[in-house]
């Protein structure tokens, strides 16, 4: 279903792609915050020399409080921000200087579904797919298939997005990301605000995508259980610093904790913010 006819000749075939999907080395990002007239702008460091790698096909979850730098990390890897130091590569391509091949390999689902609200799910997916080189002939076949796969009712395909529930919108967001067959999927709190049933459906779908389509996943989440069941390794990001990145069991063992929440507290000295308190950082 994902075998679209996108002609991506400047992207390496997956077989010859590097073993590491993502290599982040000493990545640094700071923002300048305006102050009153005459006073110099205040610098705020969002990411502090962060380093990690993600192997091809791996799912890595990043936990962190609001403002810890999770969204900044995702936006850097999405080519939406420029770094202030360090480097990042996606399948061997430099994220900051080789944006085009990186963009062909990456897609993203964020906490806000983000669609043209007057347009329907079908229309939103259709034009977005064109940006990835997919023709009308392909999308006519694939959009209904992928919407059915994420559990979106066929009879609501032409309804304006603004009339859909948050859960429905998030399913369309997932469909939009997967329609372009990304080999690296960046998920920024994809289930935040969803009802438990929608949350489970989205999580099942993420699992399936990973299993069937060899996708590499970077997941930023406020849901500890979600991080534990979906990911191979879990990282803790605190005030822009990546404190640790290892399998959940190793993490608990390292901090002598029974649960991930206890491990998070031990690592950061801060209580973990659950979903209802969550917000997007930066």
């Amino acid at each position: 279903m994902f075998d679209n006819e996108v002609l991506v000749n400047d992207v390496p075939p997956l077989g010859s792609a590097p073993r590491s999907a993502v290599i982040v080395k000493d990545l640094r990002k700071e923002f300048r915050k305006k102050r009153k007239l005459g006073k110099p702008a205040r610098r705020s460091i969002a990411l502090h020399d962060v380093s990690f790698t993600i192997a091809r096909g791996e799912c890595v979850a990043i936990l962190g409080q609001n403002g810890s730098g999770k969204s900044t990390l995702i936006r850097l890897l999405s080519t939406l921000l420029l770094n202030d130091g360090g480097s990042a590569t996606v399948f061997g391509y430099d994220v900051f200087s080789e944006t085009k091949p990186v963009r062909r390999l990456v897609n993203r689902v964020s906490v806000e579904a983000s669609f043209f609200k007057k347009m329907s799910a079908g229309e939103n997916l259709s034009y977005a797919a064109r940006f990835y080189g997919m023709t009308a002939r392909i999308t006519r076949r694939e959009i209904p298939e992928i919407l059915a796969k994420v559990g979106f009712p066929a009879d609501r395909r032409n309804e304006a997005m603004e009339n859909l529930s948050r859960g429905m919108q998030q399913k369309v967001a997932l469909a939009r990301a997967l329609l372009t067959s990304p080999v690296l999927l960046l998920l920024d709190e994809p289930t935040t605000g969803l009802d438990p049933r929608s949350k489970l459906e989205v999580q099942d779908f993420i699992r399936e995508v990973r299993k069937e389509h060899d996708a590499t996943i970077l997941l930023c989440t406020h849901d500890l259980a979600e991080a534990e069941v979906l990911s191979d390794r879990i990282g803790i990001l605190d005030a822009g610093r990546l404190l640790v990145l290892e399998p959940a069991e190793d993490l608990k063992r390292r901090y002598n904790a029974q649960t991930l929440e206890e491990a998070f507290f031990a690592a950061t000295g801060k209580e973990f913010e659950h979903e209802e308190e969550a917000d997007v950082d930066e």
Partner: protein
Amino acid sequence: MSRAPAATLRAELIGLTGVVERNLYLTKRYFLWEVAFFFWTVANTLTIVFIAKGVEASGGQIDVNRQATILLVGGVIWSFLGIIFEILTETVAWERWEGTIEYTFMAPLSRIVHLGGMGVFAVLYGVIRSALLFGVIAFFFDLEMPSADFVSALVVLGVASISFIGLGMMTAVLPLISPEKGSQLGFIGQGMLLVVSGIYYPVDVLPAAMQWLAKISPATYALDGIRNAILEGDGLSKMGDEILPLAIIGLVSIPAGMLVFRWGERYAKRHGKLKRSG
């Protein structure tokens, strides 16, 4: 052409159709807004064209038919220019408001194709709307244009559109670097063109400095060319003085527009402004 560049070109052209397709969906979904906006433009243009009749009614000696046509061409071109600027400025502003900006800017679509797609839609939409506007007002005043060469007028408009798109690209960057005030700043550029280009009066009446600005405004040549085609029936063979400067401004303004937009995009990426509102 070898396979890789051909494939890339194909993907880019498909992307360009995506930009046009999206705008068509939006026009369809906001159709009543479009109707209301068109009525507003008709009313606005009517008030300007009525000036010709007003001058005669207050004792002025003018050829009302000719003067009304001059004002009508000015009104229609002004509305056309407004559409191009508005649609290109929305490249960023509307997407930021809807929240789709991050998804569009992280798609593997060249910025020239992205902005070009917006420009292509703006020109298509603007030409249809301007033709309707021209027809409605001309019918209302029962204007006679016996020697009008509409094909030449359309060609001049087409060549001028390249420059308008280039200028639009420059204004499109404003909401990118200033999310709160950018769109409003775009009106300054648009207003400058209105004053110096002779939309409703000959540029000779302007002070010397403003006449110099008129020389580098594509709207000046577009208005001259279209008025000559409609009033005098000038064909393309007589349009060298208008088409050549328009072509030169077009050739300069598109790369300049891209350069400005690239700089703005880089600035936005550096300062974290390439994101949705709120």
